[in-house]
């Protein structure tokens, strides 16, 4: 799922100082699951933003809502519950959701309340970890299902480097060394031969950096 963190309250307040009626809009998918941007979080945020201490004059008037997926144009335009005279929206969606909203409701200003951080998974309750960075060329089949591009601090293709100690990454002793994990996973699978071949330099083109990537599927719509 896409994981996001709530921005500092002051930063959010600074975006809405000039507005009078603000809709705080949650997103019902990834950020609901990671407990940062669902309807419940939208309500809580609206409550905190309503406190007069944040403003010289009066706080804006807040309403709260949620859309199943703010990143889907059809779902966004089908949302008919924006109260009249709403002059700004605070979106609790990821960056994709905020932008889809901004396109759909132009010229209504849509402001982000989350910092979108990563594509991750929840391995333990309350903890989400980055697992994928969308490099566009998945190599998990050779690395025991552990992504070195995302989980090695140097994105090495021929790790482990000379740094890991006690199985932990030199960059942060709290982070397991991805290549050490790969080594032991492949050892258990009896597939250590996969590490012997020198992996040639990656083609980074599928990873982006040449304008936004798009995917098209014919026969839809």
């Amino acid at each position, binding site marked *: 799922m896409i994981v996001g963190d709530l921005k500092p309250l002051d930063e959010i307040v600074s975006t809405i100082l000039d507005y009078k009626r603000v809709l705080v809009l949650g997103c019902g998918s990834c950020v609901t699951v990671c407990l940062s941007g669902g309807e419940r979080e939208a309500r809580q945020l609206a409550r905190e933003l309503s406190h007069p201490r944040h403003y010289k004059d009066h706080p804006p008037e807040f309403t709260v809502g949620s859309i199943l997926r703010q990143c889907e144009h059809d779902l966004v335009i089908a949302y008919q519950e924006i109260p009249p005279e709403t002059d700004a929206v605070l979106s609790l969606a990821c960056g994709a959701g905020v932008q889809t909203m901004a396109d759909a409701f132009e010229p209504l200003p849509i402001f982000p309340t989350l910092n979108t951080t990563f594509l991750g998974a929840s391995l333990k309750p309350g903890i989400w970890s980055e697992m994928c960075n969308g490099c566009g060329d998945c190599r998990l089949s050779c690395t025991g299902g552990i992504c070195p591009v995302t989980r090695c*601090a140097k*994105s*090495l*293709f*021929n790790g482990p480097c000379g740094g890991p100690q*006690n199985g932990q990454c*030199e960059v942060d002793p709290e982070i397991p060394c991805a290549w050490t994990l790969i*080594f032991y996973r492949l050892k258990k699978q009896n597939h250590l031969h996969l*590490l012997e071949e*020198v992996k040639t330099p990656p083609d980074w083109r599928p990873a982006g950096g040449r304008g936004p990537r798009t995917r098209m599927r014919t026969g839809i719509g």
Partner: protein
Amino acid sequence: MKSGSNLEKILKAGHFAFTGELGPPRGTSAEEVRKKAAHLKGKVDAVNITDNQTAVVRMASWAACIILIQEGLEPNYQMVCRDRNRLAMQADILGAYAHGIRNMLCLSGDHCKFGDHPHAKGVFDIDSMQLIQMVKKMRDEGKFLSGSELEEPPKIFIGAAANPFADPFEWRVHRLAKKINAGVDFIQSQCIYNMEKFQEWIKQSNEMGLTEKVYILAGVTPMKSVGMAKYMKNNVPGMDVPDEIINRLKGVDKKKQGDEGIKIACEQIEQFKEMKGVSGVHLMAIEWEHKVPEITERAKVLPRPQVD
């Protein structure tokens, strides 16, 4: 001869190589490089010039290498993957060769986190293994990484690092094999303090026939003090400093700790001279270049052999 560098000739002739290290200044002083180089002149076969070591900005390695050549020493140009992409790397290799640089050390590089610009984005377009491959391709095939032809290929003696002390230990010898397959000619090991573990790694390397395919220079860094030993043990990634080293330094008067550090280093060097699979020593006298004449004297590695 792959490069015709002095280091290559020394190793090929079967001499026990002895190389040094020089950290470029955090400023523009060519004089500082010259001063450090003067301590090393005639004492070592080649000098590894570090590349923004520990991710701290310094004078470019290639620039300090050129100063060394002017001073009559042979540099070993270190290049890390952290700070440049494949275009910049290949351009620097061509320029370095054009200025007479004949040895390179190919490293991934310490993470930006450890340095003076922790906010920087690490490049890591390619990794150290792929850097070795790239230099070999440029040298032996006369081609850039993209496959296009290059004129007058850079004849570089290709070096890389090996750390027998990092995890997982059982993979370390295979990683060496991988670097050999990638095309490395010589290896500089991480600073060795745990002799037992190093010997085990060399034994494995010998058994796999790897030491016949690559020259291994054992890394030696004399400890200046107990403080340094503790710092290396606890703060430097991939370092294995056994307590016996710390205790031995503690056992002498504070003023004599540096001397004891050199004594330990010299004892190690004597062992390496006799160790099957070890072709030489790489001495990293960190910010202690002025001690190199004394260390090389005490280690009985002088005079350095002359080869043609």
